[in-house]
């Protein structure tokens, strides 16, 4: 059988027989790798650990003050009220990020909780299925989609159907 070029690095060399070909089979992804056997074992390295917290602490108090100020301003600037899930998703993500930043910069439990509560309220209205272009369960393909996107392929910025 033939593996794709990028499989070669993942295939377990001790358990894989790779014969030498004088001329390779080709595909659009490159020269294919011949492999003998009916079982391939591939090892995939885990992704790097990603945390919500920052790895580096900001030490410059001047910078910290500017960021804190901006968080306070931004928090009230745009309410997550978009009637489509695409726009709302971006808005709510921004709000959540502000909460995270505020928490990271130790702006006080009450302040952080205030943002979280707001995010919670707005999210709930979507999860309850009461917002504008609300969610439906797609019986044909499975999964939750917005109602408008079922009928219009251009809905949700072209993510419909």
């Amino acid at each position, binding site marked *: *059988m*033939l593996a794709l070029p990028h499989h070669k690095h993942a295939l377990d060399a001790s358990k894989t027989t790779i014969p030498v070909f004088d001329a390779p089979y080709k595909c659009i992804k490159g020269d294919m790798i011949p492999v003998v056997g*009916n079982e*391939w074992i*591939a090892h995939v*390295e885990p992704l790097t650990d990603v945390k919500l917290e920052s790895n580096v602490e900001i030490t410059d108090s001047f910078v910290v003050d500017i960021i804190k100020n901006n968080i306070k301003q931004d928090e009230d600037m745009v309410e997550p009220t978009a009637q489509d899930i695409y726009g709302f998703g971006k808005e709510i993500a921004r709000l959540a990020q502000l909460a995270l930043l505020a928490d990271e910069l130790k702006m006080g439990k009450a302040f952080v909780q205030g943002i979280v509560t707001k995010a919670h309220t707005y999210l709930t209205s979507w999860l309850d299925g009461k917002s504008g272009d609300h969610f439906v*369960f*797609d019986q044909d393909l499975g999964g939750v*989609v917005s109602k408008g996107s079922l009928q219009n392929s251009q809905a949700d910025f072209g993510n419909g159907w």
Partner: protein
Amino acid sequence: MTNTYSSPQQVHNMFNSGNSGNSGYGSTTDESENGSPLRGPRYLPVYDTPLLGATIDNDDLSEDDASDDSDHEHSNGDAVNNIPIHFKAMALSKKVAWNLPPENMSAMISENDALSSSRTGKYPSRSRRRNHRWMSILVACVVVVGLVAITNLQKHLHNLDKQHFRPTKELTSDLPYPAISRDSINAKGSPNRMFDMDLFVPDMKKTLLPFPTGAFWTNFVLKRDPSQNSNNNQDWAGQLSDPVIVYPYAFKWNQGIIAISYPSFRRIVQPYVIQDVFWPDISFSVSEGVVSRKILSYDHLSVTLRMNAPRIATENEAVSFFDMYMVQGSPYITGKFTRSSPKLDALSVWDKVGCVSDYAHVGGLCTISKADDQNNFYVSMTGVQFLITQAEGQQWILFVNDGVPITFLITADRHTIVTAHPYTGVIRLAIVPPGADLNGKTVNNLLNHSSIYPIASKVLIDYEDVPKVTKLIISIFLFLCHLFFIFFS
């Protein structure tokens, strides 16, 4: 005629929202109901549900063999009971010594030892003779049990062949959102409107939930937009499906043929673009004609097509068809024929037919008949391995897999190679990659490995917890090779 590889991707994008929804489909609850407890918070998407149980039990393969058999006895093909079968088959393909449960194997070996010692001429004592009698009865029993096990196994694997897609299950949700069927709101993206559902075998339709909108073979069932055909200068080409890429080959099909291409043969390299082009180099069909076609089964790495020929009136209305196993990464194109006459139409003409053994060190039985030696007017070829060359320059090796020589006729217009009689067995076709020496390692490997053909695949994902490092091991159990062959070879 320049079809790039964008098509499958387009299909995928078209259903992007549907696909991303799939991963949310409640697979956790299903798992616990099926009795396959999940280890830790990680779990597979629902596509892999039948495989998961197998992965977890992987360490206990040998102990579970016997108990599995009894489980199979009362499985009636419903989804939950099918799970052990998957697991069983994988165990078998892995262990190779699959035909008898391990304890019976050891029993047989010891019994045989006993028998051979009795044949050495030493006259055994009376009690030992009695022992031998009992032992031979035991051996007979073991053999019978073994044979029954093998028969059952083949039956199960035969079922597996048909049922290895996914569990039959209605799509439901615990989430508080109204369930909507796409047909009920007349959505254009409804599977029934997008796809030709008649191209699936009836049993399979039930298992198409959720519909595999992003499968590599989805182009086979995507309905053609009639308005596109008018833009196409070649009417016949308009009837073929969009290409399905099964590396390194590509396929299209229509009501009568499966068109085969080795797209990199016509690679166009420009400074910023590399393009492989599909041309129907060979059209695979049967001379009886195709009356209906179906998708028989599929999995992550394979799809099997069936082309039905008319039933044979002179043979008690026996069925006549051929199956094409399209497995990703196979250098061979494999067709299994049942009472039908394989027919290979060249894009233009077959330039030359010959024997592999004329060029390579090895090569199967083959004789070529010419009407006239000077004009190279080929009439027929008989054997099991042939080298056939197209006018465009592609060289193919044609394999007859069952070891019994068959006769192909070459039509006078050199367009068609067709068997003289209906054939039951496997025929394989592999392109000789441009630049390969017929005495070289590529062709040598092709000849050495042509006898075993893949018909399906399994993908298992295993997570191995090492302190601080989580290692993801994907074992790809590829190619449940044809068991009949493994057993008798």
